[in-house]
């Protein structure tokens, strides 16, 4: 199983490069537009989290690894060297009640949890390692 990897600056402008990298790593598999849109959304939300939560107010880097198994399962692993942040422990947004009264926040992580088919987090030495998988 081929593993593709790439290191990027942890900035919002890295998003396009990240998307293109994952798109290439999927080949020759061709996910449906719906699955690809979910993958794109998850990548965006995860990068935003790294930029704002792992490296608040400072720069950093992100390492991406992608693997596609013969069964068509795509796993994307994002590693950063920022402050420890486990998005899976982040409290879910308050979804009940009138939206006008809701706190605006935590929506991105909630979307990731709902859209990724599998999600795992661990802290390894001085890095956050988050893996999301999709069945293509």
């Amino acid at each position, binding site marked *: 199983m081929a593993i593709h990897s790439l290191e990027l600056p942890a900035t*919002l*402008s890295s*998003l396009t490069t990240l998307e293109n990298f994952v798109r290439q790593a999927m080949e020759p598999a061709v996910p449906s537009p*719906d699955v690809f*849109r979910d993958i*794109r*959304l998850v990548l*965006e*939300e995860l*990068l*935003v989290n790294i930029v704002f939560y792992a490296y608040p107010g400072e720069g950093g880097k992100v390492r991406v690894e992608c693997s596609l198994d013969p069964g068509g399962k795509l796993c994307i692993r994002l590693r950063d060297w920022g402050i420890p942040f486990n998005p899976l422990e982040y409290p879910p*947004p308050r*979804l*009940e009640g*009138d*939206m*006008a009264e*809701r706190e*605006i926040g935590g*929506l*991105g992580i*909630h*979307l990731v949890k*709902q*859209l990724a088919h599998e999600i795992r987090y661990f802290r390894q030495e001085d890095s956050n390692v988050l893996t999301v998988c999709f069945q293509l």
Partner: protein
Amino acid sequence: MPLTVTSMEKQPGVFVVSPYGSLDTNTHTVLERKIDFLAREGAAKVITLDMGGVDYISSMGVRVVLKTKKELSRRGGALVMMNLKPQIKRVFEIINALPTLQIFSSLQELDDYLTEMQRQVVHG
């Protein structure tokens, strides 16, 4: 994909705002600025977001919608949406926002809604 936003004043203070493109982390400020401008310069009370041209939305885009809804409600106005593509609807569905958002399927429905609002204003 970039985002362009056009707007049209249907009645005084009542605007149809049409974003076109991708409403995401890198583009949401385009919509935010347009809405701020309409609120400030056009005294917008009711904004209809015609989402027919939006094919992608991320949480940053959702935040703009929720924030606008909150601000308009506070001023006694309203935010309504129309023409959501299935993938956009799904994102709002996941965050459970659909029950509190007013969504219309046509301009006719919107016009009926606006007429009703107008009637309520006139007749208290």
